[in-house]
């Protein structure tokens, strides 16, 4: 198992973080070191062990499906880097 430069580029793309070529090399070393270290889990036999979903044994609470909040567009969009007419504004995505 080894994360090469191409893999770094691929996961950086998936994570939407620009990583230039020079950084890819350094990151591949660091990621390999960390992944090599966590690899020790493979020595444990976990056959039949239920993967943990919640540390507290509880049933998911349900609430009534009603509108109980809202009607303050200005507060919701207040921190947006760019907004217009009560909407978030983004670079053009459709030509």
């Amino acid at each position: 198992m080894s994360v090469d430069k191409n893999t770094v580029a691929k996961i950086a793309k998936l994570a939407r973080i620009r990583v230039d070529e020079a950084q890819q090399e350094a990151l591949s070393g660091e990621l390999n070191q960390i992944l090599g270290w966590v690899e020790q889990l493979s020595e444990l036999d976990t056959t039949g062990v239920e993967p943990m979903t919640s540390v507290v044994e509880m049933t998911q609470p349900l609430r009534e499906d009603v509108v109980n909040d809202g009607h303050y567009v200005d507060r919701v969009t207040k921190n947006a880097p760019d907004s217009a007419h009560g909407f978030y504004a983004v670079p053009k995505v459709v030509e």
Partner: protein
Amino acid sequence: MSNLTHLTIADALSGMDKGEFTARELTEAHVKAVEDTRALNAYIVETPEIALAQADASDKRRASGTAGVMEGIPIAMKDLFCTEGTQTTAASHILEGFVPTYESTVSGNLWNAGAVMLGKSNLDQFAMGSANITSYFGNVINPWQREGSDAQLTPGGSSGGSAATVAARAAMAATGTDTGGSIRQPAAFSGIVGLKPTYGRCSRWGVIAFASSLDQAGPMTRSVRDAAIMLEAMAGYDAKDSTSVNLPVPRYQDALTGDIRGLKVGIPKEYRIDGTPIEIEKAWEQGIEWLRAAGAEPVEISLPHTKYALPTYYIIAPAECSSNLARYDGVRYGQRVEGKSLDDMYENTRAAGFGDEVKRRILIGTYVLSAGYYDAYYNKARQVRTLIANDFKKAYESVDVILTPTAPSPAFGIGEKMDDPIAMYLNDVFTVPASLAGLPGISIPSGLSSEGTPLGLQLLGRAFDEETLLRVAGVMEQAAGFSALPQLIAGGK
């Protein structure tokens, strides 16, 4: 009145009740103390105007007989809690300038209980770190120094600003959050008390998420009683956090009976790790003796999967972080760096907005969750997490609490352990297992290292049994009689 900043919360509440001083006077003393200790870089934003206004309102409430449990107590708020109208950054560049339009439940609970906000305390970026060296707003300096040296030490992390300002007598208490040790380890490094409650005890709503299945808020104080008082104010059910647990909040102070006779204290043999400094081992032995002398019974126990806790954590926490931090996309809040296309804008924004450690964890998390690796890493880690939780369940069939060291070393110098991420991760070797199991833990200062810096001991409890934990912690605090003061302290030593 210069000694106002040395009081405990309990003493300050009593002093104000007796009319010896007002919340205004107490707050003014602390506002000045915050200014005096700016060299520690413990705050990202100071909020003296808010503090003084809250203090005046608090004095009015006290006069009208409606004082809350934290009435008039000046505290620092970790800059991971959203505070309405006050910038909240998680110590990141990407959230620089973000001013929440809502209040986190825990901070709201504290204000409702009468607490006063001195400012937003510095932390590791997005709470990822163990030395408070990953903040975009600079390192936090530990008020403690090694004997005969003025080299800067780390206060631990991620709640480093909270720990430093409480230790330096600039805030009476502070909020922290703990994902893998971020309350307990800085408390140990800074000679204060830090309590991580059971997962679900305090609401996570409005707390900037790092790893949602692990994050938990808790108090950082200078005494066990103060931790009990502050936890009572912070805890409680919140319908806005679906993992918040609907249990009554006890008056935790009432648990401090001083009587631990007959309690069984587990001593996990797997926590005796090769290479742990001898003085850490000695402090642990001393802790065992203190509890034995108070009538408790130490029992050796086994938590066989302990050594797998850190690697498990460093799969689960990055996985959840990569998912949680996907929301910082330059659209809804925070910084944006423009690009040719939407994807370009995302990539530029996130490259410029996140620090190196945050990026590293997002990339690890993305990798372990990606197609083809999900089972081998993420599901495997969740299975091992079950085994770790089962270890504790089994142990608590025969013991009431567990005693361990908090950290494998005293505070280290800023700049040490920086080149090797794994060496840094090992700081949390004693705190991470209980985090994975969701259990409550508390760190108490037990004495000084050979370097003259604080050491901490950790007690772990059963889920939602903070009361027994506090009871034992109170006895240990009494036995330790820790009264040393750090070198860099408000008003001088």
